[in-house]
């Protein structure tokens, strides 16, 4: 078993890459084919079987660089190869092609290339240890390789990946050294000194120092990776349950990838099939007609099908100060669900309702949202004007296949409520859903008109957190299937 590779795959999984057992086996075959000696080659090879999306590529690049830094620090490698791997393959390719055409370029790990103390690529820790090893000129690259592999194997044996706290460093260091039979090594060094074989003892001592440095670096890096990952997972889970209004701007910026992930899950669950075969019911007329050419022998059989009409979705979002963050989230969600909600038209309002569907076609989602906010955002909501103009725009498009989702807190600052327009929409559409980010305890307090809007909606739901919104959309998609 290639413990290094397995550890690397564990790191990738920790960073959100879904790697199956089959892909792990593929990666093992890739490593067996390419070897570890050429990092660039290894990176391209492993990326092809472990990174399956463009986003995965970026994570993979970072993980690869971070994980193999240790080897970069301890192994004899071409310093050029320690450069930060670009995500742009062609940059890499160009560089590698140019280098490979120069003598000796690109091929790392040449035996007997001296101590290679120019390992400036690693960080401070690995630099220290590489110098410790390199300058002595005693440890050949093969020996350093085996030292590193021993340490990694021992780390895997004692489950170093479970380390969580800095206070555990001493415990894990001791465990790894025990697994490496460090006590025996110390005894051997003592015996060699006693026997007067100072040279051998010195070599063994240097090896042990290298081992200890590698252990320290491995523990520090694992701690960093785990904490990084653990805190990321915790943060993502927390963000899903946190009320957006209570969320800092810094955290709101981290929502889009989480939303995309949730949307992908929803989309895969609700793939719409627009033609559903009623299995077992032969369409006799069609079968006979289509088989006339074959003398009426039914070579082609046709089954009765029911065509599922696609639903039209209209989304109207309040982007006034109080709920603009939520509207942003809903619009992000709706765009990410475009796969399963193909006929969606998006509108926003502070006063007049404005259609923004085209902006999403022209620009990437994040950019489109920024433009919408800049052009139409800020200001107080005027629900009367918004609902009336919304009704005017969609009146001739509404039918029994239409579903209208309105996101707002229903606080119109005491102005016209636009309830009649909403009632017209309610009578004509198949479904009118009102998502209110406010807690239902606040409904009908102050200038909230949400109870009135309830009378002209099929369902008013509180969507105080990302998870609640996800559930609502899940239910909606189930209805639309």
């Amino acid at each position, binding site marked *: 078993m290639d413990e290094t590779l397995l550890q690397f795959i564990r790191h990738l999984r920790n960073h959100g890459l879904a790697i199956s057992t089959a892909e792990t086996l593929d990666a093992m075959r890739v490593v067996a084919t390419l070897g570890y000696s050429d990092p660039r080659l290894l990176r391209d090879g492993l990326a*092809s079987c472990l990174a399956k999306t463009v986003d*995965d590529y970026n994570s993979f690049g970072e993980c690869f660089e971070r994980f193999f830094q240790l080897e970069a620090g301890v192994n004899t490698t071409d310093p050029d190869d320690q450069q930060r791997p670009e995500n742009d393959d062609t940059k890499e390719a160009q560089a590698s092609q140019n280098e490979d055409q120069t003598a000796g370029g690109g091929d790392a790990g040449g035996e007997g290339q001296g101590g290679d103390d120019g390992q400036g690529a690693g960080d401070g820790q690995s630099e220290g240890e590489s110098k410790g090893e390199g300058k002595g000129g005693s440890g050949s690259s093969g020996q350093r390789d085996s030292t590193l592999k021993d340490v990694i194997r021992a780390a895997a044996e004692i489950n170093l990946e479970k380390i969580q706290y800095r206070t555990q460093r001493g415990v894990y260091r001791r465990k790894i050294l025990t697994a490496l039979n460090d006590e025996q090594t110390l005894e051997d060094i003592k015996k060699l000194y006693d026997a007067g074989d100072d040279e051998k003892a010195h070599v063994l001592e240097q090896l042990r120092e290298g081992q200890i440095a590698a252990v320290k670096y491995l523990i520090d890096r694992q701690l960093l990776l785990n904490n990084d990952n653990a805190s990321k997972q915790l943060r993502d889970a927390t963000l899903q349950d946190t009320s957006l209004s209570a969320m800092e701007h810094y955290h709101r910026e981290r929502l889009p990838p989480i939303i995309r992930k949730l949307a992908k899950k929803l989309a895969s669950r609700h793939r719409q099939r627009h033609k559903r075969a009623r299995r077992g019911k032969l369409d006799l007329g069609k079968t006979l007609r289509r088989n006339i050419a*074959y003398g009426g022998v039914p070579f082609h059989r046709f089954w009765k099908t029911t065509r599922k009409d696609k639903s039209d979705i209209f989304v109207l979002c309040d982007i006034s100060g109080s709920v603009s963050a939520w509207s942003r989230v809903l619009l992000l969600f709706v765009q990410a669900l475009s796969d399963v909600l193909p006929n969606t038209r998006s509108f926003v309002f502070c006063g007049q309702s404005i259609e923004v569907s085209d902006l999403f076609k022209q620009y990437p989602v994040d950019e489109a949202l920024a433009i919408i906010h800049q052009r139409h955002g800020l200001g107080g909501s005027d629900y009367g004007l918004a609902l009336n103009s919304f009704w005017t725009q969609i009146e001739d498009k509404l039918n029994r296949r239409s579903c209208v989702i309105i996101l707002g807190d229903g606080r119109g600052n005491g102005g016209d409520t636009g309830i009649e327009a909403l009632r017209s929409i309610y009578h004509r559409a198949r479904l009118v859903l009102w998502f209110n980010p406010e807690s239902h305890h606040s409904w009908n307090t102050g200038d909230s008109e949400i109870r009135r809007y309830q009378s002209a909606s099929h369902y008013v739901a509180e969507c105080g957190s990302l998870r609640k919104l996800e559930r609502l959309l899940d239910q909606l998609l189930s209805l639309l299937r």
Partner: protein
Amino acid sequence: MTDARKDIDQLIAKLAEQGYIASSAIATTLYIAQQLERPILIEGPPGVGKTELANATAAMLNKPMFRLQCYEGLDESKALYDWKYSKQLLYVQVLKEQLNEILDGADGLSNAVERLHNFDDIFYSERFLEPRPLLKALQSDNGAVLLIDEIDKADYEFESLLLEILADFKVTLPEIGTLAAVHKPLVILTSNNTRDLSDALKRRCLHLYIPFPEAKLESRIVQSRVPEVPDELRRQLVNFVHDVRKLDLKKQPAISETIDWARSLLLLHCDSLSRQLVDDTLNVLLKYEEDINMVGPELHSLIKRANSQL
């Protein structure tokens, strides 16, 4: 230099002979696909050479290429196999004429049915099978390159149909049974990422993302495809295209458009970019009126930069 590195460099050289300038990542993935006998799923913007890679690979390996263009509604009768209905019909008619012979001497209905039951039925047999691209590739005697183009345009059901082929290079036909590949073909799938592909499909493939190339690489591609273009003009037009790609366009100019533009400029016998020339030929590079209008005001500075960059 490792053996793998040498093989991959050789692959790059062989693809270059076919007019395809491959990056190291592309060649590495292709090499691994051959070693591991795995399909490759290539993603990337349109016009970066995804389909061309399949063509060049087939030419390099000197193997036939079977291409399946995907679209919404594509089903197994177009992609995998169908029956030769007219031949089957003839067979039925011949059978009718031979019926007396077959049933000769059979007493009573049960005997006749028994006799028919023992009769060798070839109605659904390989003899009457009409192979479509997928099956043709599996049945190819000396191996083949199978290109499944724009898989993202096909339905999810079609993806499921592909899973068995991609995993085991086998296909199960309900009427006949399982047919395995004579020689495993090299399978290349391309996608423009218009929708997410299923994880099951991605798991079975190696993944390769081909982005727009760096200026140096694109310059080599243009040189390989349109060698008559003077060096200075090539440098300028590649720089110009790269600057244009930085603008917010509806459709970024792809490599194929850079090559078309290079050919157009060659036809006009020019040796450097000028405002008038770019104005007249911009529609070769940009395919939307809005994009042309957006680039228009920037032309002066774009040409100036393209001419000055080294």
